């Protein structure tokens, strides 16, 4: 009888020993700091008069809390002069980090995966004419840059405003991320949207 007992306890010890040893280790680990890759908080459109580098019109959209629930704020309307030619460039930042991270560099590095698309009030511009290439990708936009495959990127574009005044028009800029999707015919609905911003446009 005693021998039996002893053997039982040995078996019991064997079964539970391993588990007991490894348990009961309360820790206080905090998740490591992560570098938010996909957040853009601030996008500024910079229209520079091609004839006068000091004539700059800026319009900024800001999402102060990134993926948080706070609404996007459009800080400015776009107020352009009639009958002038502008170059449009961007300042794109993640300001949740200090210092802010320049996402524009990242887009440039991956130019063959990105394209900017534009939509605007009909005939707001004489060049490009029409309403932009968001609805139809082949519609004219004056891209100043190309990726290594010869497809447009849009970090720089040229715009000539109409001579007639426009008040309360719209100007939409959409950045698409199109890894393995971007071709000469891919459009504003292909791939993922990095940003999609709607500004009011005034021309006087």
């Amino acid at each position: 009888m005693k021998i039996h007992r002893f053997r039982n306890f040995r078996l019991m010890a064997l079964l539970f020993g391993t588990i007991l040893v490894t348990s009961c280790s309360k820790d206080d680990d905090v998740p490591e700091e992560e570098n938010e890759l996909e957040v853009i908080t601030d996008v500024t459109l910079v229209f520079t008069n091609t004839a006068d580098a000091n004539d700059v019109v800026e319009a900024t959209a800001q999402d102060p809390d990134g993926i948080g629930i706070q609404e996007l704020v459009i800080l400015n309307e776009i107020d352009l002069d009639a009958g002038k030619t502008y170059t449009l460039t961007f300042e794109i930042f993640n300001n949740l980090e200090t210092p802010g991270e320049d996402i524009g560099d990242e887009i440039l590095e991956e130019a063959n995966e990105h394209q900017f698309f534009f939509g605007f009030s009909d005939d707001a511009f004489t060049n490009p004419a029409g309403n932009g290439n968001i609805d139809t990708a082949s519609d004219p936009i004056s891209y100043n840059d190309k990726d290594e495959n010869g497809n447009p990127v849009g970090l720089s574009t040229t715009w000539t405003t109409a001579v007639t005044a426009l008040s309360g028009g719209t100007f939409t800029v959409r950045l698409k991320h199109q890894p393995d999707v971007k071709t000469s015919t891919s459009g504003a609905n292909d791939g993922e949207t990095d940003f999609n911003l709607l500004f009011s446009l005034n021309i006087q």
Partner: protein
Amino acid sequence: MKHQFILSLFLFIWSNSVMTQEKYCPYSVSGKVLDIVTKEPIANVTIKIQDTEKYTLTDKVGNFLIDDLCSNNNTLIISCLGYSGSTSHHHHENGSLPHLYLTQKVTGLDEVTVQAQKIKEKGTETISQVTLGKNEITGDATQSLAAALSGLQGVTFTSAGTNIQLPVIHGLSGNRILVLNNGLKHGFQNWGTDHAPEIDITSANSITVIKGASSVRFGPEALGGVIIVESNSLRLNTPLYINLGTGFQTNGGGINTNLEIVKGSNKWGYFLNGNFNKIGDRKAPDYSLTNTGKEEKSFSFGVLRHLKNWDFKIYYSFVDQNLALLRSSIAHSGDAFVRALNSDAPIIIDSFSYDIDAPNQTIQHHLAKAEINWYSNKGKLSLRGGMQLNKRDEFDVRRNSKKPIIDLDLITYDYQLEWRHPNWSRLDGLFGIQYFSQDNDNNPGTDTTPFIPNYNISRYSAFGTERLKFGKNTVEAGVRIDFEFDDVRGRKANQNIFRDDYSFANLTASFGYSRQLSENTSFRTNLGTAWRTPNMAELFSFGQHGFKTTFGLLRFTDNNGVLSTDDILPLDKSVVEPEKGYKFINEFKTYRNGNFHNLTVYSHYIENYIFDRPIGVFGTIRGPTPAFIFDQANALFLGADYSWQKELDKNISGILGFSYLWSKNIIENVPLINQPPISTSLEIQWDQGKVWGFKTSKWIIRYSYTFRQLQAPRTVLPQSLIDGSKIITIDSEIFDFMNAPRDYFLLNLSWNFKWKNLSGSIAAQNLLNSRYRDYLNEMRYFADDLGRNLLFTLNYSFKGKNNK
């Protein structure tokens, strides 16, 4: 009228062991054999113990007794004049007096089938429950646990596509359902509709569903019910048994293969089980569902060592899954979401492939358990210890990254000590204590703010249940108290650290009564309460995952209607309260003249019911994004499950099923969201018996009709939120982004056969290739559900002749 050949025997067997004797063969088996139709005892039925010379005949009143048995696990061979012999495994654990109910159903003169009805789990005798056996589970070896159970009345599943399905009992899912995996609470990321328990059903021998709120014995928080998954029960004295199964299915080009080996000697028992599944992109009737494949590998084994008065068991299982989610379910902006909703077909459709790309999940789940049972005249003592490791990576379609967006390791420890006391006069019951702990850690490298924080949970519990039988009445009562301590560490969006720690005391209590109204009719009723601590996702969810952003109860603040997610409320300072459920459930069963009726009626009131719901589309730099928040309300659930089985002929039976659930947020008098719609089914079974050289041949046709959910919240289209024509605030009435899908019919057909050592089936799911969307499937926003699927399964089983 033609004489009915269906002779059913009711067998009550109980067993007794005489512990005081020092004899080597202290076991006995006794019982009674009754005709189930006439209720007359049957005399002169031969009862023989397999592999022994021991046998007896039933006496004039159907009683029999065989004693001096040397094993506590016996196979009874029951034969009755005019009928062929049948065998019934009878495994009993000494020290208690288990009843093994055997219903014998005789189809034709030369065929006897014995179906063992599983004894009700201790402490839940007065609660409605149902058990599925091996055959019912493995008809489709690739299906999920939830899908296997969804044929039961009152049980359905909520899902994020075909690969991820979570059981729903009486409208409740997630961690309101306690999934007991081989005696341990399955320790996994149990939150959201996209995390299903990682359990391979081919390793299960039986699955029991308890539909009550008060699983005093198994754990707290099970407001919805308990699902008990048990693998091979490790029998002694079992001849070598090998089963090799394989299957193919047309939808998704799925293949599966599984192997099980079982053997038991008089001191040892073991089993081994392995399974492999691979399925490619599934098809809806009109298009391919791109990226919906899965790959699953699993392995388990168990060993039993039996000594006099002692049983030692160890069990280990490993499940490895790679589950794809529909590619088109990821919409990175409100515009894309609107387009996905408005499109009849998914936005992205590629040709068929076995490849699994993002979005997908990879999970490895290890479960190890050791158990000791000690039997004496002072009762049965069980000590159970378990450890689980759950490693989960989730991949979204991400802008610049192939890194997982969620990368979590969850370690669970569970120790239980349980004492089933011997009868105290007429009281039968058990007491137990439990220690349970979980440690969740985020692995670095996701490049995003953790969706779920790091946390540690410690829980100390004590419980007891008692049962009193008098005459045809049983009264049952149980109570359980849990003290839970939680310690949480996470990151805000600006990567600042936040901490919280809090504790809860949870009560679970149950009081039930059952009565055998007549030989054919029984009634049971149970009133129970169970409390539930809000889980980590409900409290702390933060950020974008899939097509939406979600914010937990503590992750947003309401400043005069303006929502902010910058701060995190400490739980103590918030209005968050644990859920408290009160469920009253009644079951009425009757069998008469070939008609078997089962009616379950329940009401369930839940205080502080937690649910997630759309709150709007919020402006982000990417465009408006659908956002969901968690919310609390008092909710009432009223429902009924009904089934009527009728023997239409000696070989044909029909089963009519009906499930109804009414639910409401009674604070605001508005509907809840994502509640199961009314469903009905009609199943006809035709058992041909021996025909065409087959040992058995059985046809099942099942017709199911699911109503449109008429209690869905109102619909507010995302485009009307984006263009500002509808304004939603936190105080607005609950809504959904899309109408509840319309009603649908599904037709399933199967043929099962046995031939020599082979058994198999050919089955068709959604035979008519109907287009449908399921209200509880999150993918209903984006695509139709599966089209026709033909499944072919074949099993080869080998059974040794003796148990040496």
